[in-house]
């Protein structure tokens, strides 16, 4: 069942649908745009952590077919992280009422971190198509896509420092990611 692309895409779209429904029903509080900034950002961060966890999890739990199945959908997870991050950026621009905010805030490190992370996700999404693997060659493509880890670190910082500050959440999400990465070193069992 987890091989189904449609199911995965449905699951990945569900948060966006949920947010849209909540917005229309007026369930997003006094300042819905403020809430949307938080929801889109959090969804993007979670998806980024998930996509970077899939391969180590698949390696660590070789017997579990469902993880291997999920692992085939890495591109969908990664690109959807980019879409939610873009929604987050758009919500911010709307909240601030224009691009003037960007120039005002370029001296704030956590905003720059977020923008750089978004740019990385943009580049990775565009080059996620098979044609790019051919154009760049497998090795260069793989090196480029390692930038996802840089994006993850930037997002962890951005999340920890933004707004009221969410150090606990950032630590929980990205600490888990670090721990999961250690599964890459699980030795191959001889069958």
């Amino acid at each position, binding site marked *: 069942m987890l091989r189904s692309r449609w199911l995965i895409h449905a699951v990945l779209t569900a948060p966006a649908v949920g947010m849209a429904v909540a917005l229309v029903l*007026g369930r997003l*509080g006094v300042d819905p745009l403020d809430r949307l900034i938080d929801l889109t950002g959090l969804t993007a961060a979670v998806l980024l952590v998930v996509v970077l966890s899939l391969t180590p999890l698949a390696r660590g739990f070789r017997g579990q077919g469902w993880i291997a199945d999920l692992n085939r959908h890495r591109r969908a997870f990664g690109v959807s992280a980019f879409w939610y991050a873009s929604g987050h950026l758009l919500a911010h621009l709307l909240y*601030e*009422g224009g691009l003037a905010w960007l120039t005002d805030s370029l001296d704030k490190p956590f905003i720059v971190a977020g923008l750089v992370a978004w740019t990385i996700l943009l580049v990775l999404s565009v080059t996620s198509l098979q044609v790019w693997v051919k154009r760049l060659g497998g090795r260069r493509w793989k090196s480029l896509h390692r930038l996802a880890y840089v994006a993850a670190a930037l997002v962890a910082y951005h999340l920890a420092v*933004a*707004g009221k500050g969410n150090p606990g959440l950032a630590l929980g999400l990205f600490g888990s990611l670090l721990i999961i990465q250690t599964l890459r070193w699980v030795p191959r069992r001889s069958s």
Partner: protein
Amino acid sequence: MHYLKQADWQLPESAVTLEADYRARRRFLKTAGLGLASASLLRGTSLRGATAGFPSEPNPAYRPADLKPTPYDAVTQYNNFYEFGFGKDEPAVNANQGWETEPWTIRVEGKVNKPQTFDVNPLVKTIGIEQRIYRFRCVEAWSMVVPWDGFPLASLLAKVEPKRSAKFVAFTTALDREHMVGLRQQPRYPWPYTEGLRIDEAMHPLTFLATGIYGKPIPNQNGAPIRLVVPWKYGFKSIKSIVKISLTDRQPDTLWNQLAPNEYGFYANVNPNVDHPRWSQARERPIGAGFFAGKKPTLLFNGYTDQVASLYEGMDLRKFF
């Protein structure tokens, strides 16, 4: 004249929520997904704190024609009151789960000739309340316009006769470990919430003690039954639910300055030219103005420059932020 005798258990008429507001609030609560919880919430919205003194007289000196008040539901559902949770929608729920704000006393002491404890309702009846429409600017860069009902802080301080040695005024919020669920979420904060003003700031005519909003007793989530409003400073200076006021000769500690001294200063004057370390203070989001309202420019001293600039003459506002 014919007086209708009311039973002890009956709330005074001033505590009755206007029907239109009652219905609007129920509709809002329903759509905010709080329909089921509204039974307990409505108990809170009977507004029991500081019920005395209404109806209040509008003070024409503080009623600028161009200031449009933020809708009541926004003012009472978008609150930073961390003792009742971090989310802005939490205090409206958590502060109305049995937290009693009437009766209430304030202790005023320190460098004064007549230290005493005041019962809030009789105090309000003695001084009388008026309504003022003030701008409110949160340090997080959003803002509101609020019609506050209350009286100048100076009127209360006059009753205790501050001594010449009193240079500062320190304020303390209530600490209720049973009802303030936020205390357990943030155990490392130096509770209770404290704030302070210089004596000339405290005695300034703009500095206000509010016991009501929009002509009704102030809701719990807004700092019932009595809170400070210092409109030319960031909102965190406007301490809520005051239990103690002390006059001192030394600058008092304040919670936010203790937690993050590089981000929250003692003066906290609204200033578009002095950024918060993590975000710009040049613009602010007007709450209730709509989804696409964007932000508008922030005014120095939140637009009260004429009234307060003289307090800070010669002071480096960047150093003393």
